[in-house]
């Protein structure tokens, strides 16, 4: 489905056959094809896309928890600052 060659930067180029975009990893190419050309995928590729997608879901979940932490900190931090300094 995709050809893989090295472009001399030490990074593999995983090129999308359909639109020519290149990605540094097979996982990113899978995600690209799943998001951009969903009708082109074979059953195996759909499976691979699902897997990569849910893999990323885990990463996103941990990011969301951290982001929520920062938001809570910001909110209470500013609440305290306003109580102390605003008049």
């Amino acid at each position, binding site marked *: 489905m995709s050809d893989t060659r090295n472009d001399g930067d030490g990074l593999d180029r995983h090129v999308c056959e359909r639109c020519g975009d290149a*990605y540094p990893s097979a996982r*990113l190419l899978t*995600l690209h094809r799943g998001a951009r050309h969903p009708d082109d995928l074979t059953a195996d590729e759909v499976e691979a896309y699902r897997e990569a997608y849910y893999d*990323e879901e885990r990463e996103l979940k941990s990011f969301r928890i951290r982001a929520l932490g*920062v938001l809570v900190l*910001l909110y209470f931090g*500013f609440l305290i*600052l306003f109580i102390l300094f*605003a*008049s």
Partner: protein
Amino acid sequence: MNRTTTLRRFGVSLLFASLVSLLAAPVAASNGAVGLAGASQDNLAVPQWLYLATGGATVGASALLASFVTDRRFIEQVHSWRASVALDDVVRRGLGIVGSALGLALLGFIVYLGVTGPQTPTLNFAIIVTFAGLRAGYTMFTYLVGDTWRAVNPWRTVATVLPNGFVEYPHKLGRWPAVAGILALVWVETAAGVTRQPNLLAVAVAGYSVLTLLGALLVGPEDWFDCADPVSVFLRFYGRVAPIRWNDEDGLSVRLPGMRLVTDDEVTDLADVAVAVVLVWELTFSGFVTTEQGAAAITAVVEAGLPALVVYGVLYLGGFAAFLGLYVLAGHLTVRRIETFETPRALAVRFAPSLLAIAVGYHLAHYFGFFVSLSPMLAGALSSPLSPPANPVVLTLPAWFGALNVVFVLLGHLLAVWVAHSQAYDTFPSRMQAIRSQLPFVVVMIFYTIVSLWLVALPTASPPFL
């Protein structure tokens, strides 16, 4: 009545309404705010550093909140929502003719009355229409409603009927000539006294007309007004934020405000990034030199022995270079943070359209109050160009409206955060990458927010030595 007729009728009345509001905009918008900062500082019961930090944190927090939205389909739905209204050919041509006639008449009156009219700025048609009308009101109309300049532009009207296009426009220059032109026009506006002396303004407009016509005839109006003419490029970039666009194939197309910035790949190279940056920078610069603190800083440097024009010039061009450099730097940092073959420059180009949303917020903060308080004057000038009223009316706006400027700055940034978010999802296949790619750009936006919130809260002064 069938559906097409209803739609067409709706289209005609919508267009008519927007033309009317173009002429009558002052009346429609006169429940507004104060101009140029001024009154707001005394209202702030919080210390300045806390006010600035809160503004910066608002932008940062909204970027974090946006990062919770990871559903590609939802994001795409928001920025690709559209409605279009077919327009009759006859109506379209008619409106085009009306627009051209208006443009030519305004240009003629500005030059003629600038020279022959009363030489008091508040009484002179040229000054009122150029600054309250075009610089403030028409620019607002362009980004809040739609860009009509193509039809109105008097120089295009003239250039298209004359023989033109003797030389090919050097396309490798991109829009850099327009960047230089916008910088030059803002410089003339700040330093040459055209805002105070009507006859000088008339001469400047006449000179600009000659240059523009020469350019447009030489390379042809299409390329000239697309790439080189500062006024056209300025309005066209602002017009990209607008919900309505006039289109040859499907009449009027309506989108959510700012969402064309995501889908229409109209920013294509570094020159286009520079145009977007210059729109943000010129407002920041004029904001700075018209505050007491800015004036004091410039006075201090000049008294240390440097010529005033050099100080202004270095500040003006140096600040522009710094703003542009920061944006390109954000591109470099992004490339280092994630695995991608995108180049730093390509990313700066990708994220540049969000700057236009920021520029819109700044423009409103700088000009909305100004426009509203001068709107009776503008209406008077437009309704009877040849007989100026003896006592021009200026609306006095309540001081608490100063808070509105803060709201405008923040709203512009919030829209920019969403545009950048959508843009990131369009660019990167991985959602995690989309989130991480935005961080450097969000940091730059927080910096811009803090600078301009600081500026809108400072008391105003007139720039020294000019």
